């Protein structure tokens, strides 16, 4: 809502309060003022000029040579390029030395050989937006009414010597979608009175009821419909001050009748509609729901197909307006209109909302109905508009209002105790202070003991319960004045075990060199299904904004591969990233899905690069596995984890492992399938994805100190020849089982698959460490266990010592 500072002064005395100060006060007491616009934008030296002569420029087809009286000294010659300049016009002239918006200075100039002493201005040149300039002047200069005084300040005449406060209104304060509503608010803030506008209607012999009959079929949608008839109107431009006020509020002037309905919309917040009575084609107004498929051409010349959800105003048979949204072209006021039927109605907000949504038509009018207009101002607004039509369109307002009124107007009555106000706010207010606040708001308030009973005016439909009164008190008392305290009571806060472990996982992965990412949960149908740990039907949005963001992800990896692709395309092809976040597993359409938190990572390019010392290490499976093992170690779960060779869709068939926790699959790790890498145009990329939920649900053994061995250990290294398919994990398992209880540690230290080996064989070397915590082991004891290990290796895995 745009509020003109000058216009507002008609309703509230603003003496001693500048526009900026007012903005600050309004903001602090509840309605955010987004800005204060100075309308004249630094314009200086623009006056009303009288075009005495106009002739064709001798050297330019499109220019005119004008002789203009500026009300001082001799008339001056001005060259003008506007097509509509004509002799006798009163126009806005930027004199030599004038300044236009953008600090554009007007100088004496020669245009095609002819002297020009100033510039005749269009409204756009004076800083008014093209879309609100009256249509007839939008392509040329603006022409003042003849009564404009030559030499007068053109900016003042156009109402541009003003400031406009831009209010950002929350949905509960629809009352401030009107100048009067703002006036009540400002009056309460400043503790001043509100002056109401007048409407003086002369009695006439003819009665409106003889011209029209009103019937409402849909009372719920339209509890109040009031029609007035104004005869003998002369359509023409409205007074300049009125046009100026509309433009300052961002509305384009049309003609006096339409401008007056818009003016009342701004003044009272009540949308009105003017029909050309003669074009209605009947003496009847019937308000009803539209028939399915019924058509109406609206004012914007669009044909609208209606349904029974939409409320229409009809002439008894044909629709003539989409109620509360837009009038029909068939009954529009034109320059030939002489009799106006003026509609002032109360339409149900939800009905209007549905229609404006269905037809993509949001207007100043529909917005106000949607939020609810003041039921007590509907008729007043109609009266006032009729009065202005009589005054500024020469009309004759017929006696009476033809009306159907089933609207029940009951102001809200709310009681509250002073104790409650102070208890909720933490204040120590006195009853007199509270009473004063309601007086300033012009709310009726009665005190009985500790209780104050408030009757809220109908314009403030947002006041319904005790808390609404507390809010009124708080905002007008001022939040600055409320003390600062802290909640009483001692509670200790901490992270849950899951939250703590999740932080540990993040910190570990970052310590290992991975950067955390945040990617979108919404993805394309195609991507959603890729790399999923668990395949369930993807969850699709009912109305996605784009196909790329239409379903919820089942895996994080596709998003991370996008990150790899994005960065690779920008010369960052060595990358290590991870993400923790939910994937969404459907449980059927009508119930909530399972949301499972996963952790996923992608590494690509060089893992390590220390160029001047010649150290370069590309990523591989074991870099990735090392990170995972470190993470499992951190969580104390290494003993319960297995890596098992596996096939996963989209992954390299030979370089992928399924990860199991206590024998149950919780994720996988490996290289992305080379075909997928090629499609994405990325280098070899290794990824993992695990169910973080499953991983963190598992608890580590409690931490206990284990004594440091006091006795020396004995190490035996063995190189085993096995079939190529035999995996080291199998061998290690045998070693660990058989080596008990003295075997402390066993690790692979060499792998040889070269040509010195027999076809189909490879050699794996293990280092075995034996130790006893109680005493020094003898060589014989170790040998005994070691031989047992070797025998088992041969028996169970066909492993023989390499000769």
């Amino acid at each position, binding site marked *: 809502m745009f509020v003109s500072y000058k216009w507002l002064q008609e309703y509230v005395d603003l003496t001693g309060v500048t526009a900026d100060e007012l903005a600050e006060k309004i903001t602090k007491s509840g309605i955010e003022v987004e800005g204060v616009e100075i309308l004249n934008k630094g314009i200086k030296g623009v006056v009303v000029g009288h075009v005495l002569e106009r002739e064709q420029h001798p050297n330019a087809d499109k220019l005119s040579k004008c002789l203009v009286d500026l009300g001082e000294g001799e008339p001056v010659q001005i060259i003008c390029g506007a097509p509509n300049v004509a002799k006798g016009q009163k126009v806005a002239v930027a004199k030599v030395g004038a300044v236009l918006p953008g600090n554009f200075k007007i100088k004496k100039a020669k245009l095609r050989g002819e002297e020009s002493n100033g510039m005749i201005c269009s409204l756009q040149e004076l800083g008014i937006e093209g879309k609100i300039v009256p249509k007839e002047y939008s392509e040329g200069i603006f022409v003042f009414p003849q009564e404009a005084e030559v030499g007068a300040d053109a900016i003042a005449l156009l109402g541009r010597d003003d400031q406009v406060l831009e209010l950002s209104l929350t949905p509960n304060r629809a009352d401030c979608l009107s100048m009067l509503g703002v006036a009540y608010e400002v009056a309460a803030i400043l503790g001043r009175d509100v002056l109401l506008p007048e409407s003086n209607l002369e009695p006439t012999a003819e009665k409106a009821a003889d011209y029209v009959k009103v019937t409402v079929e849909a009372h719920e949608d339209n509890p109040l419909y009031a029609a007035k008839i104004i005869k003998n109107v002369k359509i023409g431009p409205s007074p300049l001050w009125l046009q100026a006020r509309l433009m300052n509020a961002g509305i384009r002037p049309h003609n006096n009748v339409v401008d007056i309905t818009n003016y009342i919309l701004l003044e009272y917040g009540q949308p009105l509609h003017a029909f050309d009575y003669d074009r209605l084609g009947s003496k009847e107004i019937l308000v009803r729901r539209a028939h399915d498929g019924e058509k109406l051409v609206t004012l914007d010349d669009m044909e609208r197909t209606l349904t029974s959800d939409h409320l229409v105003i009809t002439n008894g048979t044909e629709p003539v307006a989409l109620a509360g949204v837009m009038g029909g072209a068939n009954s529009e006021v034109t320059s030939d209109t002489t009799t106006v039927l003026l509609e002032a109605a109360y339409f149900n907000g939800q009905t209007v909302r549905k229609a404006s949504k269905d037809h993509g038509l949001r207007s100043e009018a529909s917005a106000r109905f949607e939020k609810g207009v003041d039921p007590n101002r509907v008729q007043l607004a109609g009266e006032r508009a009729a009065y202005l039509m009589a005054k500024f369109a020469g009309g004759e307002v017929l006696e009476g209002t033809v009306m159907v009124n089933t609207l029940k107007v009951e102001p809200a009555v709310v009681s509250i105790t002073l104790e409650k106000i102070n208890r909720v706010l933490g204040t120590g207010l006195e009853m007199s202070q509270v009473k004063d606040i309601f007086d300033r708001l012009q709310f009726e308030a009665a005190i009985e003991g500790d209780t104050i009973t408030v009757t809220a005016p109908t314009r403030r439909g947002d006041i319904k319960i005790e*808390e609404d009164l507390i809010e009124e008190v708080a905002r007008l008392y001022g939040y600055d004045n409320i003390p600062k305290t802290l909640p009483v009571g001692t509670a200790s806060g901490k992270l849950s075990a899951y939250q703590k472990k999740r932080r540990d996982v993040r910190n570990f992965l970052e310590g290992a*060199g991975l950067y955390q990412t945040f990617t979108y949960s*919404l993805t394309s149908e195609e991507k959603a299904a890729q790399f999923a740990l668990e395949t369930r039907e993807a969850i699709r949005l009912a109305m996605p904004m784009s196909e790329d963001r239409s379903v919820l992800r089942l895996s994080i990896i596709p998003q991370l591969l996008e990150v790899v692709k994005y960065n690779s395309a920008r010369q*960052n092809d060595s990358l290590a990233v991870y993400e923790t976040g939910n994937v969404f597993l459907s449980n059927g359409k009508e119930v909530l899905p399972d949301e499972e938190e996963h952790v996923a990572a992608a590494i690509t390019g060089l893992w390590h690069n220390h160029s*001047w010392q010649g150290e370069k290490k590309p990523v591989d499976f074991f870099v990735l596995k090392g990170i995972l093992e470190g993470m499992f170690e951190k969580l104390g779960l290494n003993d319960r984890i297995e890596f098992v060779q596996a096939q996963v869709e989209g992954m390299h068939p030979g370089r992928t492992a399924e990860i199991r926790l206590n024998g149950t699959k919780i994720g996988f790790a490996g290289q992305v399938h080379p075909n997928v890498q090629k499609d994405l145009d990325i280098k070899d990329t290794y990824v993992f994805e695990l169910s973080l939920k499953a991983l963190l649900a598992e608890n580590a053994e409690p931490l206990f100190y284990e004594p440091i061995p006091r006795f020396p250990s004995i190490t035996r290294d063995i190189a085993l020849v096995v079939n190529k398919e035999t995996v080291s994990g199998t061998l290690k398992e045998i070693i660990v089982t058989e080596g008990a209880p003295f075997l402390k540690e066993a690790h692979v230290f060499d792998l040889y698959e070269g040509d010195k080996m027999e076809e189909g064989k490879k050699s794996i070397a293990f280092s075995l460490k034996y130790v006893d915590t109680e005493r020094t082991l003898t060589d014989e004891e170790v040998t005994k266990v070691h031989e047992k290990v070797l025998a088992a290796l041969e028996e169970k895995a066909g492993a023989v010592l390499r000769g």
Partner: protein
Amino acid sequence: MQERLKELQAEAIQKIEQSSSLKELNDIRVAYLGKKGPITEVLRGMGKLSAEERPIMGALANEVREAIASRLETKQAELEAAAVQAKLASETIDVTLPGRPVKAGNHHPLTRIIEEIEDLFIGMGYEIAEGPEVEQDYYNFEALNLPKGHPARDMQDSFYITEEILLRTHTSPVQARTMEKHQGKGPIKIICPGKVYRRDNDDATHSHQFMQIEGLVVGENIRMSDLKGTLEIFAKKMFGEDREIRLRPSFFPFTEPSVEMDISCKICGGHGCSVCKQTGWIEILGAGMVHPNVLEMAGYDSKKYTGFAFGMGPERIAMLKYGIDDIRHFYTDDIRFLMQFAKHE
């Protein structure tokens, strides 16, 4: 004889002084102190001396030998030290060459902000509550005093999956669920961080997915002044002790009274600049006293219990704190962006 010994001593010492290598020094040792050396030779001639002279001569000869030997030792130490010095000098490296990099990633800036806020409130006795991102319309709207057809639902156009299920538009449903779980009893003090979704076209200031952090305190005597005190502590810890705060009345369907909190603009010091839209203030969060309808719907007696709630956007806070100009950076994950959030503040 005596002269001869003195001569030999002077001669040897001069040679020692002039020597420049351990080998030369050794040669001198052999030459003067060896069995075939001149001193031995001199001593051999001692037989010709008288019994009185012999011990005097013997003592002198030993004196000369010792003088030469001691000088040799000193010189040897000197030469050895010089040799070590030379070896170390030849091992000099360029210490300005870069070190072997240690790999380390870091938190995404949003996690950084969220954890900072979480820790701050944990310190004030809050716990962290989380909830589903795919929500029932009931918890996302109705339980928060936003019945179907409420005009404020317009403010947050949503991604629906079915008529009753949608992607949550705020983290408030976690509050509704937490209150419901408490079955109308006892105090609540929680912080709810999480992802939320709205039907917005992604541009520099909008994102269809973003983060939110909300807080909720419910108890038997929770006042608006408690909210004000809590927010002030938060703002000063998060943005600096020198920041001023102000509360402005506002509107949210789930709180009443509702406020928005501004902090004084750090960039212009409150005088007005483009960041604060010339107002000197920057909007940080929305808050208010929990609406009685919300308390009642969750099973709390609104006559007995009151509460406050607040909510803010980590993206916005990160943008203000780090001067980030485009919200899309948070979700594009350009490594050149991510890497900038490693260091301590």
